[in-house]
């Protein structure tokens, strides 16, 4: 059961709503529920996570029941149902990447960031988690950073250190 956190109501900007409309136009008029997954991605790109009020708003926009949105948002792994770090690092932890050292990268991140999987660093900048195969097995270990899903391949502990420094300096 998902907990209801204290959440302020959400108002979608007109730019966001314009994007919603564009996506909705891709499907037959009575099938606009098809827009649900892309819309949730847009919401997440905007707010960095998907809150219950945001889901309710999406339901309202698509004219479906809120439970239909919750069912979908909780089924798929990409939707963050609680706030993450500004940079959410996702490292592949599946077989082929483990053959070339993915587990080392994960434990290195844990040490480097000083938080456990799923937690956010005190400065709010980073969170990380292991995810399943990202379809880049030949270039492992790999990680991606949402919300842009920029991709980094052939990771080493050094390249991860550098990446984190770069991200810190970016702000």
């Amino acid at each position, binding site marked *: 059961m998902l907990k209801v956190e204290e959440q302020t109501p959400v108002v979608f900007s007109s730019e966001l709503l314009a994007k919603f409309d564009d996506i909705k136009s891709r499907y037959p008029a009575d099938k606009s529920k098809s827009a649900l997954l892309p819309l949730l991605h847009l919401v997440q790109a905007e707010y960095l996570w998907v809150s219950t009020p945001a889901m309710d708003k999406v339901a309202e926009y698509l004219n479906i029941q809120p439970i*239909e949105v919750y069912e979908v948002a909780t089924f798929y792994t990409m939707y963050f149902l609680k706030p993450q770090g500004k940079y959410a690092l996702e490292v592949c932890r599946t077989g082929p990447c483990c053959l070339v050292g993915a587990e080392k990268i994960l434990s290195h991140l844990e040490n480097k960031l000083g938080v456990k999987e799923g937690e956010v660093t005190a400065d709010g900048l980073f969170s990380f988690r292991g995810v399943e195969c990202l379809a880049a097995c030949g270039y492992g270990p790999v990680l991606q950073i949402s919300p842009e899903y920029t991709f980094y391949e052939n990771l080493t502990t050094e390249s991860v250190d550098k990446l984190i420094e770069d991200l810190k300096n970016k702000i």
Partner: protein
Amino acid sequence: MSEKVKVTIDGITVEVDNGTTILNAARQIGGDIVPPAMCYYSKLQGSGGKCRTCIVKVTKGSEKDPRPMPKLVASCRTTVMDGMEVLNITSPEVLEARAGVVEILLINHPLDCPVCDQAGECDLQNLGYEHGLQKTRYEFERRTFERIDIGDKIQLHMNRCILCYRCVFTADQITNKRVHGILNRGDHSEISTYIQQAVDNDFSGNVIDVCPVGALTDRTFRFKNRVWFTKPVDAHRDCDHEKCNGKVTLWYKGADVLRVTARKDQFGEVEEFICNTCRFDKKATADWVIEHPTHIDDTSVIASNHYETLKPLHVIQPNEALQAANEIELHKTVKY
């Protein structure tokens, strides 16, 4: 396409309408050869295929194409072909596979029958009794969830849920605004109303009746009681809800109506869905016109322990696994 086709199940031949499923053909024959169905529900569109307890072996595909089917099939979602031959209880392979499904359904089940309101009318308990292994081979911690009240009438005990999706289909097809669904994925899936929104629809109470286990139960069931101590009686009232015909079963203890349910047929399915007023608010004999005692199938667990015997439920006794898992709870039942 109303031509009839012939199908033979465990050596018994029956003629059924084209398009009938193996399970429904077996139900037309009736008796022991009817495969158990934990998720299929004839009144719910799209149900079935999920629990895999109804599996059977097709030894001959049809007259035209007599090849056997390579795998066991879910009888609830496989339609018969003319000349098809099917084995259910006469196939050791089917029985073994079904026992396997039952074992798998029980690995995360709390085995808390002694304290479960459904005990005595639970399909899983019946199945576990028939196919149960003497010892569970699952040695890991069972999945657990908090118990949740869905409004003031229904309680969800997610630990017991076998994810048959019947309640979701009911909410979708029988009630007019679905607030109830399945969250998460895989073995983390759970039935939920997300924000514990009260399910306050006129027909929401039907989810209790369709639930094959004790996951959704009636909170208004007055004083907790074991169903086999209660006496079911068919009754009706003149219900003014347009979609409810007021035909129910009243469950009595002494002179008190403990709960009201829809009437169920011999396969455990409700005959007709009833409204929440009939179910939750009419608990006086004066509300009802009594017809006659409900017929209970001899083979059901309720029948074998029917009425006032005060022994603990007999299905618990021969199954060591159930007993071990419920040692403390079994002691408690003495207090009932």
